[in-house]
C-alpha cells in the first residue's frame, strides 16, 4: 500500500514536471518569475480550502461549505470595515466567525448524527445566503495598504508570494498533525471504520468536531487572503471554489471514503492544477476545453487506484485453487479480498 501511495504521488510529481517542461519550452512567458508567483498566488485560497478539507475527507466525511464560509467571512470583513472598525480587530473576529460556522456544521453532524454531505450542502447555501444578508450585493473596497501586500506581494528578491508562505505553513502544520501524531492516526482509523475506531477508544465525535471547527477557521484565513488580494469584499467571493478544492483533494490521491491520502499528494495535486491552468490560459485554451481537461484528469485519478486494485485482485484469484465466486459489487468491503491480500488496514477497498 505504501508503495502504491508513493507511486501515485510520483505520478503527480512527474505530471507536474511534464507541465513545467511543456510550459517553459512551448509557451513564452510561462517560466518568468512574475508568472510563477502569479500561478502560486492564484491558487492560495483553493490550497487553504483543500488543506481544511483533507483531514475531514480522511475520516470519510466531507465539508462542502468551505467556500461559503469564505464568502461569509469576506462579507463580514467588508461590513465591519465599512462600519469603521480597525483591521486589526476585524481579523480575530473573522477567525472566530469562521470557527463558529464550522462549529454549527460539527453540531449538526456530530450531535444529531446527520450525514455530512447533506448538512454541508445545506450550509453551503445557508452561509452564502447569510453573506448576502450581511453585506447585500454591493462590494466593499479600500482595504488598508499596509496589510494588502501580505496577500499580493512576493518576498523581496524572490518569486515566492507571502500568501504562499501562509499556505506552506498551514500545509506543514496539517501534515505534522495528520502524519506524525496519534490524532492523525486516529483520522485514518475513523475513515476505515468509525465504529471500530470508537470501540478502540478513539473519541470519534470529539475529533470530528475539532476538524470542522478548524476547517471553518482555515476558510476564514483564506477569506482574509482573498479579500485583501482582490481588494474587494463581496458576498459572492469564491463562489463554487469548494468543488475545485474537493477536486484537488481527490486528485491528490485521498479516498473519498476515508482512510487513505497524504498531505504531500494534495499539495502536489494543487501544484499540478495551478500549473496546468496557467499553461492552458497562456495558450488561449478556452474555458470549456479547460474544464474538459481537468474533468478527465480527476476521473483518471479516481479510476487509477480502482483499476490497479482490480488487476491486483485478479492475479491472486487466478493463482489460488478455489476462490468463491466474486460478487459484482466492488464497493462492498470484501472479506475474501482482504484475506487473499493481507496487509495494513489502509488496504480497505471501498
Amino acid at each position, binding site marked *: 500500500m505504501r508503495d502504491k501511495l508513493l507511486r501515485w504521488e510520483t505520478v503527480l510529481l512527474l505530471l507536474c514536471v511534464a507541465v513545467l517542461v511543456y510550459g517553459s519550452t512551448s509557451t513564452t512567458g*510561462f517560466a518568468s518569475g*512574475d508568472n510563477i508567483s502569479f500561478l502560486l498566488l492564484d491558487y492560495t485560497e483553493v490550497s487553504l480550502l483543500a488543506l481544511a478539507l483533507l483531514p475531514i475527507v480522511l475520516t470519510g466525511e466531507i465539508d462542502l461549505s468551505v467556500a461559503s464560509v469564505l464568502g461569509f467571512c469576506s462579507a463580514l470583513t467588508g461590513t465591519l470595515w465599512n462600519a469603521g472598525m*480597525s*483591521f486589526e480587530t476585524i481579523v*480575530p473576529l473573522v477567525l472566530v466567525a469562521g470557527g463558529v460556522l464550522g462549529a454549527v456544521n460539527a453540531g449538526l453532524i*456530530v450531535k444529531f448524527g446527520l450525514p455530512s454531505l447533506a448538512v454541508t450542502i445545506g450550509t453551503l447555501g445557508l452561509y452564502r445566503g447569510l453573506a448576502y444578508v450581511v453585506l447585500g450585493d454591493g462590494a466593499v473596497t479600500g482595504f488598508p495598504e499596509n496589510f494588502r501586500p501580505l496577500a499580493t506581494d512576493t518576498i523581496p528578491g524572490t518569486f515566492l508570494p507571502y500568501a504562499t508562505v501562509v499556505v506552506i505553513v498551514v500545509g506543514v502544520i496539517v501534515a505534522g498533525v495528520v502524519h506524525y501524531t496519534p490524532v492523525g492516526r486516529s483520522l485514518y482509523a475513523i475513515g476505515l471504520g468509525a465504529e471500530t475506531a470508537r470501540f478502540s477508544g478513539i473519541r470519534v465525535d470529539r475529533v470530528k468536531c*475539532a476538524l470542522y471547527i478548524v476547517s471553518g477557521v482555515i476558510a476564514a484565513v483564506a477569506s482574509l487572503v482573498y479579500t485583501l488580494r482582490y481588494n474587494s469584499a463581496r458576498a459572492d467571493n469564491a463562489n463554487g471554489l469548494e468543488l475545485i478544492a474537493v477536486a484537488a483533494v481527490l486528485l491528490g490521491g485521498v479516498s473519498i471514503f476515508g482512510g487513505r491520502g497524504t498531505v504531500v499528494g494534495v499539495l502536489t495535486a494543487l501544484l499540478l492544477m495551478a500549473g496546468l491552468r496557467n499553461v492552458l490560459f497562456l495558450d488561449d485554451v478556452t474555458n*470549456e476545453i479547460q474544464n474538459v481537461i481537468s474533468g478527465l484528469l480527476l476521473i483518471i485519478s479516481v479510476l487509477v487506484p480502482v483499476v490497479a486494485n482490480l488487476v491486483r485482485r485478479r492475479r491472486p484469484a487466478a493463482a489460488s485453487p478455489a476462490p468463491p465466486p466474486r460478487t459484482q459489487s466492488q464497493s462492498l468491503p470484501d472479506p475474501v479480498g482482504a484475506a487473499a491480500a493481507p496487509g495494513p488496514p489502509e488496504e480497505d477497498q471501498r
Partner: protein
Amino acid sequence: MIHSRPIHRAVLAATSAGLAVALIAGCGGTTKDSAPAAPGNAPASTKAADPNATIKDGLKITFLPKEIDNPYENIVDKGGIEAVTELKGVGKEVGPSDASASSQVSYINTLIQQQQDAIVVAGNDPNAIAPALKEARAKGIAVVTYDSDAAIDARQIFVNQANSEDIGRSQVKLISSQIGGSGKIAILSATPNATNQNTWIDFMKDELKKPEYAGIELVKVAYGDDDDQKSFQETQALLQSIPDLKGIISPTTVGISAAARYLSSSPSKGKVALTGLGTPNQMRQFVKDGTVKEFALWDPSQLGYLAGYAAAALASGQISGAEGETLKAGKLGTRTIGKNGEIILGPPTNFNAANIDQYNF
C-alpha cells in the same frame, strides 16, 4: 454527548481568546478613515500623446468581456475584433465562463504575460480588477474599459455605450411621437434599485417637465424585476388598472419583450403604444405584427468597434486618454474624449419596421 463537553470548553476558550484579542486590538489600529491611501501608482506611459502618430501594425489587442458565453458581449467583441483587423492588428476575445468578481483577474494576469499591446475589458467588479489593470499599465499595456467601467485610475479610457441622459430623454421623445403628444403613460422598469434604469427614469421625468410634453402624464412606474413572467403580469395589471393608458416605456430588454408579448395577444394591441430598450431579434415579430412601432438600443457591435479603435490609438501613442483629445474611429468618424477619459458611442439607434431587418442581434 459526554465527549463533547471538553470540546465546548475548548471552543469557549478559543472564542473568548479571539474576542479578547479583538478588544485589545480595537484600542488602536488601522481603520477605514486612518488607512493609508493607495499609492498613486502613476502609469508608466504618461508621455504626451502625438495626434499625428500612425497606428502601429500588428498590435495585439484582447477583448475581455464580463463572461464569454453572453451573446450580447460576443456581438460587442466581434465589432471590436473587426476594428482591430481593419487596423492590421491581431484581435482576440477571451474570458471567464462565469461573471464572478475575481475570475477576470486571472485573465488579465495572463494577458500581461502574453505581452499584449492593449486590454479591453468590461469589468465585473471595478475594484477587484483594478490592481491587475494597474500592473498591466505599469508594464506599458494600454487599458480600455467598455460597457462596464473599472476604477477610474486603473484604466485610461472608458467607452460608454450612450450617456444616461440621452437614453432617458430619447425614450420620452419616442413615446410622445407614438401617442400624439398627450395621454397617460406608465413605465415598466427592471428592479426597484437597478442603477441604470433609475438614472434613466430620472431623466425621463425631467424631460417630461418640458412644455412640449405638458399633455403627457406619467401615472405609474411598475417593476417587472427583469423577470419575464413578472414583467408580463405587471403589463396586464397596468392595462387593467389604467383603462385610458396610452403608452408604456420599458427601458429594459426583458421588460419590453414581455410587455410586447402580452400586448400582441390583447385587445389593446396597436392602441397602447410600447417603446423602450430592446434587441432587434427579440422585438422583430412585434414590430412586424404592429404591436410596437419603434424602440431603441445602441448598436453593440459599434461599441466594440469604437473600443477597438480607442485601444489601438492608445497603444500607438495617438491619444493618452486626456480630456479633449480626438479619437479617429474609422467608419464611426471621430469622437472627443470627455471628462475622466470617457468616450460616448452616441445616441441610441432607433429600430422600426423600415430598418429592423438590417440588424441581427
